[in-house]
């Protein structure tokens, strides 16, 4: 049986794919939205720390299947190691409808104006491919606004003096601080800093016919039992499907983008829910598989015209793999500073995003998400016992008394940090897997150190009787859930993969709309930016298709 030809195929129903599906389907285009995972179900993995998206010890609750989806990790010395979604170094992103937006912490950050023009602001950086984006903050601002209102954000940017300009306020009021945040907020004000409530893709009040947040202790890493966390799975994807123009195919693994002799994309090859090979044709294809899988799909789609994979004539696909160099300081208090109302992170500081001498980019700081008991067993001052009586005593007496301030530090893009495919190692469907390699840039550690010192100062001012640092920014490969950068957007075809609209330079009916096209990750959690890019690329496609059909 042949599948009916459609206008557009979208590969991956995550933060961006769901948005693109909604933009295209509401414009009247026929859409096939592919997702390798299934609809997420709260009841199948409730409140179990060992099977949560944050602590994948016994399983990855939102996919992919640990036994069917290996990757290869290449060490600095060139050793190749096979890793799975529940072993270290895999850099797993959820594989389900909504992807990471089902279980994320849901911070709703806009990048700042400077983040779009790092090269202009900071100049050349040795050993880095630091560059300006081909679009500006002003270009993306309306898309941020759409993401905030259609998907749903609680926040109040007027409390953040460093916030970029906006046309419309966030739709819901911000969340109140929890106990830890109140203490840290007051202390940081005494240091001259500017604390404010973290904007969240989570309902502070009922919104979009769904409930307000119940401050569940187990929030980040889990689906929400009352559906108060806003992802694409409970907002734009249902809207896309309701138009009647969009079919969502779950359990379907797209393994190749097909192209013809004229250099046009013609459709995709995929394995359906029963693992049978299938073909779907379309007028155009949009890839939204996140930085690792998007690069793998491009590299695995070889043809006579594109022997090195699609968009890869200049060897830029898979390059500049980035994530965030997370860094933190911890402090011990002599009273219960935590109240464990979920998700825990409520206060932020943007004082260290840009405009700090000697620091390129920097990053934001926030108080930490609630740490569940097993995660906390690894959290100890340097030199502490990691087992035995002393370890247990610390766990018992300090579980409510340990505060942490942390932040995602902007990584310097690095040409050698990359995704390749390993032709020898195949997944369950016989397709070469992604191989990750490369180290982070040496400056990342310096930037992390700077931020960690600031975090530690706040903890000390707040009355912590002992503090210590967990400085990030070393080793590699980078990536993880904030993975980005592997199909950079740019005006110069020689040093980028897609143009300013996410259109692959060499193939004008092939688009990429996820974090892969980001030129750098910004010093912020990227979900809202990836959603905004979905509106940006999706909006362009819908508008252009109405006239040219990309023929």
């Amino acid at each position: 049986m042949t599948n009916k030809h459609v206008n557009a195929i979208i590969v991956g129903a995550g933060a961006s794919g769901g948005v693109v599906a909604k933009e295209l389907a509401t414009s009247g285009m026929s859409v096939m939205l592919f997702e390798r995972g299934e609809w997420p179900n709260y009841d199948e993995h409730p409140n179990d720390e060992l099977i949560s998206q944050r602590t994948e010890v016994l399983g990855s609750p939102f996919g992919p299947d640990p036994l069917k989806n290996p990757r290869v990790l290449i060490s600095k010395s060139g050793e190749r190691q096979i890793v799975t979604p529940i072993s270290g170094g895999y850099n797993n992103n959820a594989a389900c409808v909504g992807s990471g937006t089902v279980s994320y912490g849901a911070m709703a950050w806009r990048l700042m104006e400077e983040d779009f023009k790092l090269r202009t602001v900071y100049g050349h950086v040795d050993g880095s491919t630091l560059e300006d984006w081909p679009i500006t903050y002003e270009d993306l601002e309306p898309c941020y606004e759409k993401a905030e209102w259609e998907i749903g954000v609680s926040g109040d940017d007027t409390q953040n003096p460093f916030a970029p300009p906006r046309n419309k306020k966030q739709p819901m009021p911000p969340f109140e601080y929890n106990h830890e945040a109140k203490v840290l907020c007051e202390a940081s004000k005494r240091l001259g800093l500017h604390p404010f409530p973290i904007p969240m893709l989570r309902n502070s009040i009922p919104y979009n016919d769904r409930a307000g947040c119940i401050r569940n202790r187990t929030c980040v890493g889990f689906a929400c039992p009352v559906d108060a966390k806003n992802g694409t799975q409970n907002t734009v994807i249902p809207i896309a499907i309701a138009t009647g123009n969009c079919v969502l195919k779950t359990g379907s693994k797209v393994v190749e983008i097909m192209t013809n002799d004229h250099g046009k994309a013609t459709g995709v090859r995929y394995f359906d829910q029963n693992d049978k090979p299938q073909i779907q044709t379309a007028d155009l294809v949009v890839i939204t598989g996140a930085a690792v899988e998007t690069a793998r799909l491009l590299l695995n789609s070889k043809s006579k015209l594109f022997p090195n994979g699609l968009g890869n004539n200049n060897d830029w696909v898979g390059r500049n793999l980035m994530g965030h160099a997370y860094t933190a300081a911890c402090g011990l208090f002599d009273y219960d500073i935590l109240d464990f109302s979920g998700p825990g992170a409520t206060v932020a500081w943007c004082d260290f995003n840009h405009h700090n001498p000697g620091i390129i980019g920097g990053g934001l700081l926030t108080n930490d998400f609630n740490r569940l008991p097993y995660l906390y067993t690894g959290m100890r001052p340097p030199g502490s016992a990691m087992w035995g009586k002393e370890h247990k005593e610390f766990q018992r007496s300090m579980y409510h008394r340990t505060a942490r301030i942390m932040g995602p530090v902007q990584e310097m893009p690095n040409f050698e940090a990359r995704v390749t495919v390993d032709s020898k190692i195949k997944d369950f469907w016989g397709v070469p897997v992604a191989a990750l390699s490369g180290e982070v840039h040496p400056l990342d550690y310096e930037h992390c150190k700077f931020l960690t010192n600031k975090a530690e100062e706040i903890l000390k001012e707040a009355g912590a009787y002992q503090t210590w640092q967990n400085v990030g920014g070393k080793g590699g490969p980078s990536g993880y859930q904030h993975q980005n950068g592997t199909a950079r957007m740019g005006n110069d075809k020689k040093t980028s993969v897609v143009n300013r609209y996410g259109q692959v330079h060499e193939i004008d009916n092939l688009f990429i709309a996820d974090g892969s096209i980001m030129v750098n990750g910004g010093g912020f959690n990227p979900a809202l930016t990836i959603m905004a890019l979905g509106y940006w690329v999706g909006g362009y496609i819908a508008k252009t298709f109405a006239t040219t059909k990309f023929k």
Partner: protein
Amino acid sequence: MTSQNRREFIKSAGLVFGSIILFPSCLKNKNNYRFFTSEEALCIIAICEQIIPKDGSPGATDAGVIYYIDNQLSGVFYYDQEIYRNGILYLQKYCEKTYQKPFQQLIPEKQTQLLKILESNQLTETDWPRGKPADFFNRIVGHTMQGFYGSPIHGGNKDYMSFTMLRIDYPLVIGQNRYVSNI
């Protein structure tokens, strides 16, 4: 057959089946474990109790951490089976050679001392022919923490006892949006 006879017959048949069929199968598999032998389990239980000892509140043994490890070794952690099996063997050989006793019969102070030796890889290759002692020990540390502080549905953390110790409510009552208090 009279009713009396029938009762006698059932009784004796039960005895016969009980002794011939059921009893030998119990002999073959007389422990409650999927992966460990009873002897191996005694060793691991002793190590786990060292990692999370009973004090004012329950320790690893009380929480049934051994069942967590045993369950996972026959499932998700199948690739760790060899490390466990070999590690227990080497450790017990070393204990027999040095103290003429298995690990679980050493006094707690001696056990602690020996685990620190494992942790810092201080055994020779003769005593530990394959892999490193620290790999064996650190795995057990990780698994013990998971079994003690994780969810009871995987074995371990019996009756949420570690959550009581940590003063946190559990579990969440779905639909009512509150936790059951166990503090």
